[in-house]
């Protein structure tokens, strides 16, 4: 049965399409604007939920990797890989949308400040994760190494979150944690975007898992 033939996936897609419409409408029209950043400040309503979603993807990698090391069942390994792919797709979008906002806000596309640098490091760690998966050699060993890397890689997520506190204030370009959330009006729009992106990360995760499953069956057949 193909992916879209399943009822639950169809419902996911319809819900995602519906939320996407509402999401774009809200961001372009109703969402409260930051007075210092007209229009382009609303990028925040996409950039922040995309980052949260990426972190959820990486959190799943850590959970599935722990379960794989504990239970030694291959399915957890495939779950971890599918989550890493979904998470990295969103992390890539964070690194694309951030500079587009930074250009009008800071005057530069990229500044080597703590949060940007730690985000880039996280992305690179997971590029390394995929390289390890692809070129690591013995599949059983690679799964174990990848699980350990997935767990260690996740440690960068709290570091990104706390980077605005951990490094000296004069090095920071990002606002402090919670500074943006003082205005209660922004929360509904953020939550709608976040729900939509969570749905999309689940869809991405499920479909990648199915693709991996098909590949695995194919490989077993050849062997």
């Amino acid at each position, binding site marked *: 049965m*193909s*992916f*879209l033939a399943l009822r639950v996936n169809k419902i996911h897609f319809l819900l995602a399409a519906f939320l*996407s419409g509402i999401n*774009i409408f809200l*961001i*372009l029209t109703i969402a409260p604007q930051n007075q210092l950043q007209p*229009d*382009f400040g*609303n*990028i925040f309503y*996409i*950039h922040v939920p*995309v980052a949260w979603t990426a972190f959820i993807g990486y959190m799943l990698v850590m959970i599935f990797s722990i379960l794989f090391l504990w239970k030694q069942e291959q399915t957890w390994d495939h779950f971890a890989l599918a989550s890493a792919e979904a998470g990295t*797709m969103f992390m*890539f*979008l964070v690194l*694309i*949308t951030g500079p*587009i*906002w930074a*250009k*009008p806000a800071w005057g530069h596309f990229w500044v080597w400040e703590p949060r940007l640098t730690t985000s880039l490091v996280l992305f690179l760690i997971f590029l390394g994760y995929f390289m390890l998966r692809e070129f690591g050699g013995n599949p059983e060993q690679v799964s174990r190494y990848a699980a350990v890397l997935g767990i260690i890689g996740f440690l960068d997520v709290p570091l990104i979150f706390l980077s605005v506190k951990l490094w000296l204030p004069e090095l920071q370009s990002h606002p402090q944690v919670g500074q943006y959330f003082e205005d209660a009006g922004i929360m509904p729009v953020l939550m709608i975007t976040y729900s939509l992106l969570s749905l*999309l990360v689940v*869809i*991405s995760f499920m*479909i*990648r898992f*199915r*693709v991996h499953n*098909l*590949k695995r*069956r*194919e490989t077993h057949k050849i062997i």
Partner: protein
Amino acid sequence: MTYLLTVIIIVYGFIIAWIVIQIRLENEMKIQKEE
């Protein structure tokens, strides 16, 4: 507004393209398997 629209187009375009590619890939693999 240009920056905001660029971001919306990139994010939606990328996610939609990625999901469509994966669905096609899955279908392709299914067809190959059946053959």
